[in-house]
């Protein structure tokens, strides 16, 4: 194995000629596979092209550091784009490296290609001409939109013609309600192509799963039609972005859509009891269901760091002859959640299960397990647009 390749496999990026990136990559891999019997032999693995959109070199570096955990589960050609159109000096530069891992002792290293392209100034307009030829033929192309910006710059729209899927993180949006509405409009205009996935939606999947499980039993299923109150507490620690609020809105829209609730109003913003100056107000929504009115409160809390950026607890109350309460609370340890079902005259049913707080890559790996459109998410976004229309 040549020195050049060896250093790449150890993750050291090498500056490459932007106009001949494919040829440079091919040459490197050829030298690696010629030495197939060597104990340092490597296998080039690729199941998709992943384009990562970032807007700062710092963000680009962050993504580079995360790629190892991504390619372990999803071998891909990862192409990190650092797009800086506002810079005065125009230029395109590129680095290539490899991300490798050993599946098991004694086996060959499995390596994925990692290309970073920095586009500055006017050169950002030519980004598509560099990126499109680097898409691996015959394999899906996904975009990980790692930016709080919800609109795509012009050259990126040309790239989008060849993209199967865009993965956003609405948790990075500064104004989640308005921005989710924009995403919803775009999905409707594009007819769902490329498909859109949202890491902030994926963050609440385990919570939705646990809530759904509360109503699988024939004893508890009827309560689903009699829910009168929903209370969502989420962690809000005064940062610029509000993943918890977006999650709360998505969760509410999901419940409303699944249970056929009609939006009746958006109440005054809820201020949590005991709020301090500077606390951010949550949201309240009211709906009409088959069995009456439903009130939903989204309440931000300063505490709860141990639960990660997201929900701290959920409580659903249902009315009826025997009113019931279904609650889920993040435990003292960030990895667990305790669910509790309380029905008068019965022993409460309580259990504690794992609730992994996944980082971005963990969430991305989860999303990449699915290859189809998430139509439920698209439906939920439509409802979010209704709920947040001013």
């Amino acid at each position: 194995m040549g020195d050049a390749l060896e250093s790449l496999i150890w993750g050291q990026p090498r500056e490459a000629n932007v106009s001949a990136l494919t040829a440079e990559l091919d040459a490197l891999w050829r030298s690696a596979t010629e030495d197939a019997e060597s104990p340092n032999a490597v296998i080039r693995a690729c199941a998709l092209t992943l384009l990562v959109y970032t807007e700062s070199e710092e963000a680009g570096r962050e993504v580079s550091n995360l790629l190892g955990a991504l390619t372990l589960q999803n071998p891909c050609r990862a192409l990190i784009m650092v797009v800086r159109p506002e810079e005065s000096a125009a230029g395109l530069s590129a680095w290539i490296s490899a991300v490798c891992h050993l599946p098991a002792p004694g086996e060959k290293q499995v390596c994925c290609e990692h290309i970073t392209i920095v586009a500055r100034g006017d050169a950002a307009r030519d980004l598509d001409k560099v990126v499109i030829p680097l898409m691996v033929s015959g394999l899906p192309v996904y975009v990980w939109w790692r930016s709080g910006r919800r609109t795509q710059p012009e050259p990126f729209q040309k790239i989008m013609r060849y993209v199967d899927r865009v993965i956003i993180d609405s948790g990075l949006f500064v104004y989640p309600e308005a921005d989710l509405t924009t995403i919803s409009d775009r999905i409707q205009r594009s007819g769902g192509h490329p498909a859109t996935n949202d890491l902030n939606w994926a963050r609440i999947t385990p919570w939705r799963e646990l809530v759904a499980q509360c109503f699988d039993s024939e004893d508890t299923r009827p309560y689903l039609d009699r829910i009168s109150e929903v209370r969502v507490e989420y962690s809000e620690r005064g940062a610029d972005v509000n993943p918890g609020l977006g999650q709360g809105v998505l969760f509410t829209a999901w419940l409303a859509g699944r249970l056929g609730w009609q939006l009746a109003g958006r109440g005054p913003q809820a201020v949590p009891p005991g709020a301090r100056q500077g606390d951010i107000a949550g949201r309240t929504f009211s709906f009409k269901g088959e069995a009456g009115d439903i009130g939903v409160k989204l309440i931000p809390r300063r505490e709860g760091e141990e639960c990660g950026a997201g929900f701290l607890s959920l409580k659903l109350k249902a009315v009826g002859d025997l009113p019931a309460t279904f609650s889920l609370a993040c435990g003292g340890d960030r990895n667990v959640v305790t669910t509790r079902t309380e029905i008068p005259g019965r022993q409460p049913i309580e259990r504690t299960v794992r609730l992994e707080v996944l980082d971005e890559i963990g969430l991305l790996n989860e999303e990449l397990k699915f290859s189809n459109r998430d139509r439920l998410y698209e439906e939920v976004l439509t409802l979010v647009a209704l709920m947040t229309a001013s």
Partner: protein
Amino acid sequence: MAAPSVLTNPLREGARIRRTPQPCAMVIFGASGDLTARKLVPALYHLARERLLPPGLSVVGCSRSPYTHEQFREKMRQALKEHSRVSEQDAPIVESFTKNIYYLPVDTGNPSAYGPLAEFLSELDRDHGASGNRVYYLATPPSSFPVIARHLGGAGLARPGGAEKNWARIVIEKPFGHDLQSARDLNRVVTGVFGEQNVYRIDHYLGKETVQNLLVFRFANGIFEPIWNRRYIDHVQITVAEDLGVENRAAYFEEAGLLRDMIQSHVLQLLSLVTMEASARFEARALRDEKAKVMRCFRSITAEEADRFAVRGQYIAGFVAGRRVEAYRSESDVDPASVTETYAALKVFVDNWRWADVPFYIRSGKRLAKKVTEISIQFRRVPHLLFGNRAADTIEPNLLSLQIQPDEGISLKFSAKYPGTMMQIRPVKMQFQYGESFGAEPPSAYETLLLDCMLGDNSLFTRNDSVELSWELVDPILARWKEDGRKGLAFYEAGSWGPSEADSFIERDGRRWQRL
């Protein structure tokens, strides 16, 4: 696969959230045994930890041993420490899981022991909201299967509440009988009490991810199915080799032998997956219908034909993985003059339009050169050789290999021109390895199968007709071997690929076993 038990919950519609069963009580008979501690409880714990089990699930261990609830819980906590990945952080989850484990001493042969069990389960229903749903797991010796089934039926535990919305399922471990007649007897009793749709005959082999992937490979790819037939395939080999001996199962194995232990169950199931037609839907009944349909086409082998279609062997001392191992006859609990086969090879034909005259060579054995399970599909040679004799000598037929374990993957061997001015042809291999393309850890076979059972999805469980059809194939061979005794039993060195008679067996047809 369809999950009828959860469709009524609108929160599950259209969601990517995973299937979870309705609340139920799982009753494990033989709970003080190894299987419960090593496999069942760890599998249930992992499912619970991953939020795949419902709130209100309770586990009730039953056996003769006089444990209290707390003693049994402690035993299970210990089992989790030893047999599953439990970290310090998981302590609250372990506590929550084991809190719902109970124990009831039950003498399974005594019908009056089932009354208290029924009462106890009713209490759990009330406290846990299990609605009368039950899974009975028989981790007991096979002789207890019909006894427990009958007594459960007698105590009204097989059809709880008599209501359609409640369910009771019974899981039984192989062997499902020791010959055709005993399998029929067992089926009659168990299906008589529970109904066939509620009988889950567990074969952990079928829970393996790569076995399930066989169906995906065949029926989700357009390019293989058109050539998956007698016109293009010369023959198929299925190898299930183990480097281990009989370990602590000698007493059982002495009675059973390799043909019953491996081929009648696992290998014929694999064969049915390779040869079946596509079902209309990926749904239990349709899949199992297709499997049974093709098994009806397995050509019978009469006792008189057994020598031509089967070979048996027994290992003698040898070396496995650099370690000297003793002969089968020297293992403890084995008769020093035992004629039990530890190796068997069969040639099976599938008499239908797709497979007429294509031989399926099956081999399985203990103490072979390595642990490997592989299905090798050898295609026919090209009809005309245009590269001249010298080049033609090196043309090997295409070979599609489906590696089930350990290195799960798929490879295709084809010919390529060696670079240069001469026409030299070399076989090359195109390889797909699961570990390279998907880093995700698959669930264990028991996790998959236990969850499927609770969900009411019996696709990966063996149906009564399949069990009986597989016994129909092997019964005459077993009868002949029993009659022949020592005569015809070949010996092979431990650590080899089986007896030389097995090589001659396939070479008679102008073929060779694949080097694995």
